[in-house]
């Protein structure tokens, strides 16, 4: 039976195998960051449509159609597993294209559905007097949204969006299903080479854990800062 140090050497040091984890982590972070950016962008757009739909008394045909599309999108994304969406995107919709791009897009589209609801609640949590004050000063609905409502909405939901980042980081671990070497897949590759499962997978788990704990600490700092600036 191999000694523990021999196992660790084979799993991580020999032939620079730790690089599977380093590169994997790089991809994981890359996918997470860009997917969140896409998610926030989509989330804001959907939230604007849904809020406009709820607030408008006489709903035009365009608004109705947009709202319908958004509703459908939310239902489909939230009603199906992430892995399945990823595989459909990879094998069916975008049969050609860089896997990393496809993954970013998939996770972004998925995240957008969740971020949309977060931002919608953020917009709706802004006192309606704010909109009235903006409009009564002669600002258009669009400018009132951009300069008055959205900044407050984002502030209200900043912790929730940051939390989505943490959730997303873990969710990207299924990227290996479409051949992307993310952190999880990196550990799995080491396992398949050395036939030793425990150390590489434990390492993968520890890396996720450390990052998540670290990010959660940052989240608490953000929350405290925001709470302080709300003090009257």
């Amino acid at each position, binding site marked *: 039976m191999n000694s523990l140090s021999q196992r660790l050497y084979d799993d991580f040091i020999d032939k620079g195998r730790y690089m599977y984890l380093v590169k994997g982590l790089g991809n994981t972070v890359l996918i997470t960051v860009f997917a969140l950016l896409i998610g926030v962008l989509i989330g804001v757009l959907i939230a604007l449509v849904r809020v406009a739909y709820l607030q408008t*008394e006489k709903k035009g045909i365009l608004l109705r159609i947009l709202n319908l599309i958004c509703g459908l999108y939310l239902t489909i994304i939230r009603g199906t597993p992430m892995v399945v969406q990823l595989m459909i995107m990879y094998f069916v919709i975008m049969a050609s294209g860089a896997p990393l791009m496809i993954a970013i897009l998939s996770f972004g589209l998925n995240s957008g559905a969740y971020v949309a609801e977060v931002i919608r609640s953020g917009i709706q949590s802004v*006192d309606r*007097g*704010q909109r*009235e*004050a*903006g*409009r*009564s*000063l*002669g*600002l*258009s609905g669009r*400018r009132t949204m951009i*300069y*008055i409502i959205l*900044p*407050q909405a984002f*502030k209200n939901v900043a912790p929730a969006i940051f939390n989505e980042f943490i959730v997303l980081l873990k969710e990207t671990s299924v990227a290996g299903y479409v051949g992307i070497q993310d952190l999880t897949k990196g550990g799995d590759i080491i396992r398949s080479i050395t036939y030793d499962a425990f150390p590489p997978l434990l390492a993968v788990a520890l890396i996720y854990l450390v990052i998540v704990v670290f990010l959660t600490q940052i989240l608490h700092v953000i929350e405290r800062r925001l709470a302080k600036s*709300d*003090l*009257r």
Partner: protein
Amino acid sequence: MTFDKIPGETNGSGQPMVSVRDLRKTFHTLAGNVEVLKGIDIDIARGEKVVIVGPSGSGKSTFLRCLNMLETPTSGRITFNGTEITAPGVNLDEIRAQMGMVFQHFNLFPHLTVRKNITLSPVLLKMQTQEEADQHAEYLLGRIGLKDKADSYPNQLSGGQKQRVAIVRSLAMKPKMMLFDEPTSALDPEMVGEVLEVMKELANEGMTMAVVTHEMNFARDVASRVLFVDEGVILEQNTPKEFFSNPKHPRTKDFLSKIL
């Protein structure tokens, strides 16, 4: 003390500032339709100060909010400074820019400094450069004794300070008319005076004003006319002197006996 030249005064033709004809508003709610305004007719002359009183739920706020179209009337006609603003296709943003509104709960923008609260709209609407707007804000804040608060955030101000800032935020747009919806109702009693004082100064300078308030002393001192609104109609209107000493309608008497 002067705030600014009031534009409404300078083109003072005989035409009223505001003219309202058969204004009606029905809210459609889950519980059914509520007719809140049931045919309001009124002319407000340039420089006039109209104080609106009446029981809770009678439609005072709704009426005021129809005047700047924050609430869309169900029917009727409103003309402001010669423009029929209830007509289709009117640029309401341009109209609202000329009509200041002060709210019960101040509605300052909490994420912006006092200075930015005041300058945001004039700058965005290209009425002034940021520098000009900053100077104007400084001037206005000086007038209400809050120059040193320019860089504070609203939540660092007292209620009375907030409302005074809200008033000058509206004034920064150089409005032709000001609407006040219970501007002192959310204030601690000791802060009511400072806000009413600013409003009185504004009135003395000739601003056209429509004020919903429960401050009967303010009505007595400042109003050129007091309207009593009850159940969506103007039940009675008169000079403050006549209104308070000699109310005609039994419901007006009843209301005054409760509030005075």
